[in-house]
C-alpha cells in the first residue's frame, strides 16, 4: 500500500529569502531553472524532491501532513508542498483540508461561504468534482474540504475515506491531506490510508517527547512516517551575514 520509504529531516526556515532573488541571479548567471518550480520557497522544493526521491511507484500518491500539537504550521507546509507538486505534475494536484470548522451563518448564504465538502458530495450522491475548487493563486492545484463540523474525519470513517481516496486517485497524481494534530486520534488513524505521513514540528516549540509520541502513534496505527519537517527555524546569524 505505502508507496514511500525511509524517513528524512527537512528544515524550513522562519522567513522566506524572496527579496534576494535578483541578486542571486547576478551572482550565479548559469542557474538551472526547474520551470515554474523555481519561484517557490527553496525549502518547499527541497521537501517535494525529498518525498519524490522516496517514491517506490509511479502510482498516485497520498501524503498526509500532521503535527504533534496544533499551531505548528502543518497547513502552511502542506500548502507549500502542494503548490510545488502542482507545478511539477501534468494533472491537477488535490489539497484536502481535513480540519474541522463551524458553519458560518448569514442571510442569503452562498456556496462560496459554505462550500460543498467531499463528505457532503458523497452523502448526497453528487459528483466529487462539485466539491473541488481551483486554487485562487496557483495553477494546476485544486482544493477541497473534507467535511464540516469539528471532527470531519470521525464523521466520515475509515472505510469511506479509503473509498474516497481511491476515487480521487483516478484523476489526481498527488493528494495532500492537511490533517489536524495527533491530539485528535482519528487524525493519526488516517495515516494508514495514506502512502506516507510527514510530521511537522516547530523548532523551540515541539518537545522531544511529543515528537516521539506522535511518530510512534502514527506507526502503531498502521501509518508510515516518511519524513520530519523542522519548521520555524531561526538562524543565529543574520541572513545577510550568512550569504557572504
Amino acid at each position: 500500500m505505502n508507496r514511500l520509504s525511509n524517513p528524512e529531516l527537512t528544515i524550513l526556515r522562519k522567513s522566506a529569502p524572496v527579496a534576494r532573488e535578483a541578486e542571486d541571479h547576478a551572482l550565479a548567471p548559469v542557474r538551472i531553472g526547474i520551470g515554474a518550480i523555481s519561484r517557490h520557497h527553496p525549502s518547499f522544493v527541497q521537501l517535494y524532491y525529498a518525498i519524490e526521491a522516496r517514491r517506490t511507484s509511479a502510482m498516485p500518491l497520498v501524503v498526509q501532513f500532521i503535527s504533534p500539537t496544533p499551531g505548528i504550521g502543518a497547513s502552511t507546509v502542506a500548502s507549500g508542498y502542494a503548490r510545488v507538486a502542482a507545478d511539477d505534475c501534468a494533472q491537477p494536484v488535490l489539497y484536502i483540508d481535513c480540519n474541522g470548522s463551524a458553519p458560518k451563518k448569514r442571510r442569503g448564504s452562498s456556496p462560496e461561504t459554505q462550500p460543498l465538502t467531499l463528505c457532503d458530495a458523497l452523502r448526497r450522491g453528487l459528483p466529487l468534482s462539485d466539491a473541488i475548487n481551483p486554487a485562487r493563486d496557483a495553477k494546476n492545484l485544486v482544493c477541497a474540504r473534507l467535511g464540516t463540523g469539528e471532527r470531519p474525519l470521525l464523521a466520515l470513517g475509515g472505510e469511506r475515506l479509503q473509498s474516497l481516496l481511491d476515487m480521487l486517485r483516478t484523476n489526481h497524481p498527488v493528494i495532500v491531506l492537511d490533517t489536524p494534530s495527533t491530539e485528535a486520534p482519528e487524525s493519526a488513524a488516517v495515516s494508514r490510508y495514506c502512502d506516507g505521513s510527514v510530521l511537522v514540528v516547530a523548532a523551540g516549540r515541539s518537545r522531544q517527547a511529543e515528537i516521539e509520541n506522535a511518530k510512534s502513534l502514527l506507526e502503531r496505527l498502521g501509518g508510515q512516517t516518511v519524513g520530519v519537517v523542522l519548521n520555524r527555524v531561526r538562524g543565529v546569524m543574520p541572513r545577510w551575514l550568512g550569504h557572504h
Partner: protein
Amino acid sequence: MQPGGLSLSWPNPNFLPPLRRPPFVVVLAGIENSEIVDAALADPALTEAVLPKLEPSCTPPCEALLWRLETASGDSLVRTGWLRRHWHRRPYAITLRLVQYQPGSVTPEILDEGTLGTRGRRAAFKTGIDRLAMRFVRDAALGRSRGPAGSPPAAAPHGSFGWLDALRETWRERLMTEWWSIGSSATPIARVLSGGGLGQIAWHRTKTAHRYLADPFPWPGTNRILCEEMPLTNGVGRIVAVTEIDKTLTSPIILLDDGCHHSYPCSLLDNGVVCCVPESTERGATRIYWLDNDGKLQPLCDPAPNARLADPTLFKCHDRYWLGCTDLDLGDHDNLCFLHAPAITGPWTPHALWPVKIDVRGARSAGMLFDVDGRLFRPGQDCAATYGAAVAVYEIIELSETEFSEVPVVVLRPDKAGPFPHGLHTLVHDGSRFWVDGKRFVLDLGQLRHKLLGRVSRVLSKMGVE
C-alpha cells in the same frame, strides 16, 4: 423438494444483476480542459454510462455522436474572448445549451438548457460555467436531461465593460447597505397576471433602523403576517409575526429565534392546520412545523436531512405535497428543485430531475404558489442584476414526479420612483391582496463603520497581530 422438506428454490429467482446498457462513445465539444472539467470527466457515474472524448473544437457534422456546449446564439465556449464579453455585463445572464448532433448530421437537438448569472468574481464565473456544462453532460449520460427551457434565452451582452461594472459592484457592496421592507397591494390578481403591474404599494418601515422586515407570508386564519426580522449587524434573521392595524405594523412577536439564521416562513393551510417551513440554510436544517394559534412551532418532519435548501416553498398539487426549493450545493440563485411526499410528514422524495430548472432569472422561489381558475402560478426570483432584483411569475404546465414544465407569464420589477427601487423579492397573496418586499441600497454610516472595523480586524489577524 429435497429430503427433509427443504426447497431448492432461490430466495430471489432473479439473482443475476440487471442488464446494463454498455457505455457509448460520445465526442464532447464546445468546452476546454480545466481542473473542473477534468475532475468531472473522471466521475465514475459518468464513465459507466458514456465514454466521453473531449475534442473542444469539433463542429458538426461529426463521424461520431456529438455533444456540444453552445450559447443561445450557437457559439461554442472555446471561442476566444467569450468569457470577457459576457462576464459582469448586462443582462448579467448567459444561456447555455447542451446540443446533440447525430453522426454525420448538422441538425441540433437541445438536450439541456440553463441560464447562469454572470456577476461575481471572474474565476468563479468560469468555474460556474464549467460546472453547469459538466452537469448537463452527466445528466444527459444518465438520461436525466431537462430538454429545452420554456423561457426565451438571455439577450446578447451589452453595456459598459465587465471590469468597470465589477468595480462599481465591489464599491457598492463596500459602501452601501441593503434595506428591506414589506408592503401590500390591493391590485387584482388578473390585472397583475395580464401585465398591469402591482400598482400602488403601501410600504411599511421605509426609514432605516437596526432591524428590517422581509419575506412576508400570510398566517392563514388570522390577520397576521409571518416574516423575517433581520438585524443589520450579525446577519442572523429570525421569524416574527406582525399585524397591520390602521396601515401601521404592530411590534413583532418572535416565533423562531434559536441563534441560527431563519427566513422565508412559507405557510400552508392544510385541513385546518397551518404548516410553516422557515428557511434554514444549514445542512439538513430545513424543517416543517405545525404552527398553532398561540404562535408555537411544533416540528413535524425534516424533508431533506443532507441538503442545504433555500426558500423552501410548500404547496399541494395533484393530492401530493410538494416542496420547491433552491439547492445551495448546486448554486445559490439559479436552480429550482422539488421534493414530494404523499403526506406532509413524509416520506419526502426528490424529483427525478434534480434540479428541474436552471435559470438565474426565475428558478429560485419568490413566494407561495397561487391557483387562478385551475391554473397554477409560481413566483420566482430574478437574481440576474442583483439578489432579488425582480419577481418573474410562471405558469406551471406540467408537474409530476418525473416531469416539470412552466412558461413565463409576467415579470414584476420594482418601481424606480418608489421608496424601494432596487429590488422586489417576494410575492404572496393572502386571499385579498398581494404582499411583497422591496430593497433599497442605503448609505448607513454605522454599518459602514462596522464593515471597516471588520476589514481592519481581518487584515490584522492575517498579519498575526492580536
